[in-house]
């Protein structure tokens, strides 16, 4: 089936799937007693990297942010780059579950669950950075509006404060959304499990769900509304992140088209990450029937679309610089292309602009290994993009006397890699204890398909 040529022919669901089979396959992964070897090894490695992250954090708190490569000219570095990168990745999940739900895209059903999980883990990482990058992280709570004895409040004109609200709202809503989606599946696990304790545990989370028609009615309505709320939220979050830069006066940051540019970039990197995860997972758990080539192809198409928008933004950036006639803007672009960080810039253009063009070809979209490589490339490219925006804009600003250079130190890198390990570790845990695919939506899908008169 994966070899079929016409995308329409490729179903969003493997043949011979019934309510029962769907349920058993998915819940089986969770409820099985013997944990797969591969899982143990993978998790072990990820765990070691988490230890590295904790070590790096300890050093950071003990010595101060000076252990990073920052200086008085380039006052933001890896921390903010990683922050934006992770937040970007954190966009696919909610997007898939919310927007695609509104558009009633059936193919979303099998990927939304772990896309959402990915979102939450990514945003968790993202949220870490703005806090630890401050000079006195133990005072970060000052950014929350509470009636303090200083009678002081946070400064609501600052984009960083907008971030605080945007990110925390996003985390909350995503978590709830995820949990709501999980409730019926918790019930399934509760009912499928043989071990009493396991049933109890899932039972608690299931809140006593019993699939009553009236409940389903409230439930679906609520889910729809949540999706309707989450959609603008997704857009707003990365727009706000982009304000951190757009609102400032730094040449290279101070641009009005940053929000759309950032949002599409976020979706772009988000889908890249979903693909990066989906391909190995479906292979490892033999989920090809649920995550079919159709899914991968659709995601590839979205990557292509958003990738093109991002590439367009790069071109526009150059155009504006030239068109504005502003000396500082022009110099900024010139410096990006020819300055000390030029290699990064051109690498970025290659990954996010050139390489992506391959996805025009169905052959490429259908070539799973190649697709995987491209997705990885996009992840790298998007990190480079943030690095270029943050560092090259700052390091040569208005007064030449203050120009300086920036390079990440060991502690910068260890923390970045550490968060990746943290992310992967969480994904592994998720795969083990929660249904990676939304079972009731899959059954709904089976139901719909049966009505379309396709498979059985």
């Amino acid at each position, binding site marked *: 089936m994966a070899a079929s040529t016409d995308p329409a022919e490729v179903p969003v669901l493997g043949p011979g799937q019934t309510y029962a089979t769907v349920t058993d396959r998915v819940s089986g992964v969770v409820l099985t007693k013997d944990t797969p070897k591969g899982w143990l090894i993978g998790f072990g490695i990820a765990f070691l990297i988490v230890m590295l992250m904790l070590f790096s954090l300890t050093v950071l708190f003990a010595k101060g942010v000076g252990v990073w490569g920052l200086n008085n000219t380039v006052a933001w570095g890896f921390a903010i780059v990683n922050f934006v990168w992770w937040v970007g990745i954190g966009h696919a999940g909610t997007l898939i579950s919310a927007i695609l739900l509104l558009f009633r895209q059936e193919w979303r059903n099998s990927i939304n669950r772990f896309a959402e999980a990915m979102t939450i883990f990514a945003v968790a990482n993202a949220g870490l950075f703005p806090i630890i990058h401050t000079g006195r992280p133990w005072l970060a709570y000052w950014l929350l509006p509470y009636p303090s004895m*200083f009678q002081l409040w946070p400064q609501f004109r600052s984009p960083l404060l907008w971030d605080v609200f945007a990110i925390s709202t996003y985390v909350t809503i995503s978590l709830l959304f995820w949990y709501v989606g999980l409730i019926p599946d918790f019930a399934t696990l509760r009912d499928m499990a043989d071990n*009493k304790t396991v049933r109890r545990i899932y039972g608690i989370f299931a809140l006593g769900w019993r699939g009553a028609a009236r409940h389903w009615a409230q439930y679906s309505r609520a889910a729809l509304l949540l999706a309707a709320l989450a959609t603008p939220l997704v857009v707003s979050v990365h727009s706000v992140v982009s304000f951190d830069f757009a609102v400032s006066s730094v040449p290279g940051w101070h641009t009005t088209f940053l929000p759309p540019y950032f949002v599409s970039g976020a979706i772009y990197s988000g889908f890249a990450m979903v693909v990066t995860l989906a391909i190995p997972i479906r292979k490892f758990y033999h989920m090809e029937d649920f995550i079919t080539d159709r899914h991968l192809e659709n995601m590839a198409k979205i990557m292509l679309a958003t990738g093109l928008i991002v590439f367009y933004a790069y071109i526009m950036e150059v155009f504006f610089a030239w068109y504005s006639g502003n000396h500082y803007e022009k110099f900024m672009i010139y410096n990006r292309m020819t300055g000390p960080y030029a290699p990064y810039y051109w690498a970025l253009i290659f990954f996010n602009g050139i390489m992506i063009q391959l996805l025009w070809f169905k052959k490429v979209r259908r070539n799973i290994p190649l697709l995987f490589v491209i997705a990885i490339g996009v992840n790298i490219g998007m990190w480079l993009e943030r690095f270029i925006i943050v560092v090259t804009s700052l390091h040569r600003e208005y007064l030449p006397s203050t120009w300086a250079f920036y390079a990440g130190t060991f502690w910068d890198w260890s923390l970045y890699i550490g968060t990746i390990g943290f992310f992967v570790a969480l994904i592994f845990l998720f795969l083990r204890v929660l249904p990676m695919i939304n079972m009731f939506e899959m059954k709904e899908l089976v139901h719909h398909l049966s009505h379309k008169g396709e498979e059985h």
Partner: protein
Amino acid sequence: MSQIFHPSLNLIAKAMVLGVTLLLVVGSIVSYIFVRSPYMRGTTIAREQPVFFSHEHHVGELGLDCRYCHVNVERSGFAGVPSTDICMGCHSQVWADSPAIAPIKESMDENKPIAWNRVNNVPDYAFFNHSIHINKGIPCKECHGRVDKMGWTRKAQPLSMEWCLNCHRNRQDHLVPREEVFNMQYELPKDPAEREALQAALVEKYHVDIHQFNVTDCSVCHR
């Protein structure tokens, strides 16, 4: 299929949901009050001192003027703790050989200053200036309370930023005539109208800047 939870859990579960919510609300209210409580602000503790010194006796009973010991309070930002020779000024005659005076004598003889325990302490990054407050008619007791009623001296006010601001934003309500600043017994006129008139007059007289639309400049105290 058999039940995995006991019927009573229906109620308990709901109760727990309610409880948690309640806990959050009550908790925040309590902590709001607690941090501002006299206990946390240390206004309850009368701090022991190396010398048995009682303001109650010296100010209340003997009626000494604040400036007799806190010499520079009108001139300096720093009110100043009396140097040993000031104590000895009287106590070389009065109570000269009472055990209570012993530590002072010792300090004089050994040329070792007395290490008093700070009672009113503002953080190092908050710069307070006594002289300007005194000169503009803010009475001592406004911040230090009725020291003439204190044995061991006690912190009288929270000395929190909130507290500072509240006074700075309603300056006129705290003014007394310059000559009454050191008078512990002085009371403003009971009648609000009279009182307002008086303080309005003082605002004029001492050129107190009260037109500042609530903006309180940080650098006045923090620098």
